[in-house]
């Protein structure tokens, strides 16, 4: 049901990524969640199969205050929402740019951050080669071919097929 018009002259963005949305006009319910396992390393060394979302930060439910709807709200929308110019450089990780009215919004963000510094560790040339040659699962997979899931345990690769 159309309740309120939104008139937007210009909305520009450079990046819209990871399930983000530009919503122009009314919406009823927004439910948006994101989980991020962020790993920063001093040197480039990343494997697609590292880490899991098992830890508490991802799985604990956040207790929300109860909604006491003992207020009856009556709205009269006499005039549309007008936006002349809106510039958003980047929108990411289930974020929403919303121009218009909405009813219920629930958004949840869980982030775990790991930083790994090199320290005094020195690598022999063999170790460096090993790091560089570590096989990344799925890299050479053809389109629509199932990808093998590789688990790392105690530095040993245990291959399991999903």
């Amino acid at each position, binding site marked *: 049901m159309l309740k309120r018009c*939104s008139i937007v002259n210009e909305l520009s963005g450079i990046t819209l990524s990871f399930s*983000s949305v530009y919503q122009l006009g*009314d919406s009823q319910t927004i439910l948006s969640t994101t989980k*991020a396992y962020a*790993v920063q*390393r001093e*040197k480039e060394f990343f*494997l697609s*199969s*590292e*880490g*899991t979302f098992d*830890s*508490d*930060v*991802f799985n604990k439910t*956040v207790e*929300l205050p109860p909604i006491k709807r*003992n*207020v*009856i709200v*009556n709205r*009269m*929308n*006499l*005039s549309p*929402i*007008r*936006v*002349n*110019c*809106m*510039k*958003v*450089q*980047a*929108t*990411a*990780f289930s*974020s929403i*740019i*919303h121009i*218009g*009215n909405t*009813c*219920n*919004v*629930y*958004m*949840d*963000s*869980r*982030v775990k*951050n790991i930083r*790994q*510094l090199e*320290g005094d*560790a020195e690598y022999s040339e063999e170790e460096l080669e090993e790091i560089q040659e570590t096989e990344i699962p799925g890299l050479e997979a053809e389109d629509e071919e199932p990808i093998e899931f590789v688990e*790392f345990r105690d*530095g040993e690769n245990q291959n399991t097929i999903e």
Partner: protein
Amino acid sequence: MMNLQVINRELSVGSIDIEGVASASLVLIGDADVIQLASAFDTPPESLLIGPFVPLSPEG
């Protein structure tokens, strides 16, 4: 029970310039009935690892 009468007259935005919106955030121009936002950010003590680069275990 309380009655709340809202009359939305003019809502006019000239110009907005935002660098970035991330991690389940909301930029709203308009009304909302209920907004519930939850966020958890974890940098545990063991999140700063110094030493040789090893792949993080699936339990990590």
